């Protein structure tokens, strides 16, 4: 019980540090209040954006908190790899620079799994291999309006609706 939990915690924490560094160049870590009694303890997220001090994420800015939590979620995913990932506007709080780092990372991850993401930011969709555009017809019906599929030779093909 205790050992399984601590092994999982340590595995997640190792991933978390690596991914946070990869996204921001800063350091981050999970802290558990008691390793002796893990199943009654509390877990805190601490992060140190580049050039700053290591503090609990509560004192960071909106964007800095969301980068740290995104790194944690990706660490959860790494612990139990899945063939398909779906991420819905996880870049919402991020500025252009951070959004690009996230786009790059997901493009890389998509070599090992199918990654499907909803995003409103160009800084992310520019890293996509395929883009699906949706809109409504004015009466609440969703229409699929455009698709760019990167053909195997890397060239983008623009087609309306269904891909033949």
């Amino acid at each position, binding site marked *: 019980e205790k050992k*399984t*939990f601590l092994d*999982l915690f340590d595995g*997640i924490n190792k991933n978390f540090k690596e991914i946070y560094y990869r996204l921001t160049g800063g350091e981050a870590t999970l802290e*558990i209040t008691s390793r002796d009694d893990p*199943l009654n*303890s*509390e*877990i*805190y*997220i601490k992060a140190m954006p580049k050039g700053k001090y290591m503090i609990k*994420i509560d004192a960071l800015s909106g964007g800095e*908190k*969301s980068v740290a*939590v*995104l790194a*944690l*979620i990706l660490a*959860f*995913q790494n*612990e*139990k790899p*899945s*063939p*398909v*990932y*779906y*991420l*819905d506007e*996880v870049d*919402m*709080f991020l500025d252009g620079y951070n959004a690009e780092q996230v786009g790059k990372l997901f*493009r890389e*991850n*998509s070599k090992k799994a*199918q*990654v*499907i*993401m*909803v*995003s*409103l930011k160009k800084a*992310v*969709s520019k*890293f*996509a291999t*395929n*883009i*699906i*555009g*949706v*809109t*409504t017809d004015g009466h*609440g*019906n*969703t229409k*699929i309006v455009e698709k760019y599929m*990167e053909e195997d030779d890397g060239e983008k093909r623009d087609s309306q609706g*269904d*891909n033949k």
Partner: protein
Amino acid sequence: MIIESIEMENFKSYGKKVTVRLKDGFTVIIGPNGSGKSNLGDAMLFVLGAKSNKAIRVDRAADFIHKSDPPLKRCSVTLTISEGDKKYTLSREIVNNGNEIKSNYYLNGKRARYLDVLKLIDSFHIYLDSYSFVLQGDINNIIKMSGAERRKLIESMA
């Protein structure tokens, strides 16, 4: 394993029959607010997330069915999944015949038992509890969690 296509029939904002083809790699869904982007994620969860209704933002199962006048009785989502050289179609429908709402699963076009479906989904290793699907708002929820809630979250993954 990849999801090759999502076919929706009167599912939420997708009226009539709409098919979305998916490819391997990094797919980004773009579009204005309220156009149906998150509903695509809900469509996948509707089939794969058998264990949890909560995740798909509806109060009653009837809310899955595309609202129209007169009200429709049925909606369905079919995922075409390929794994190596095998292909499956896995679908789920909701039928609302007035006094009761039924939820049925179909595997390759034939009615399937719920337990068989669960076993098949487990074989895909899509760990929903480890956030393989990150819904809109999940990040905010984790930011607001207390230290104890975060420990419980990790416990649930063990």
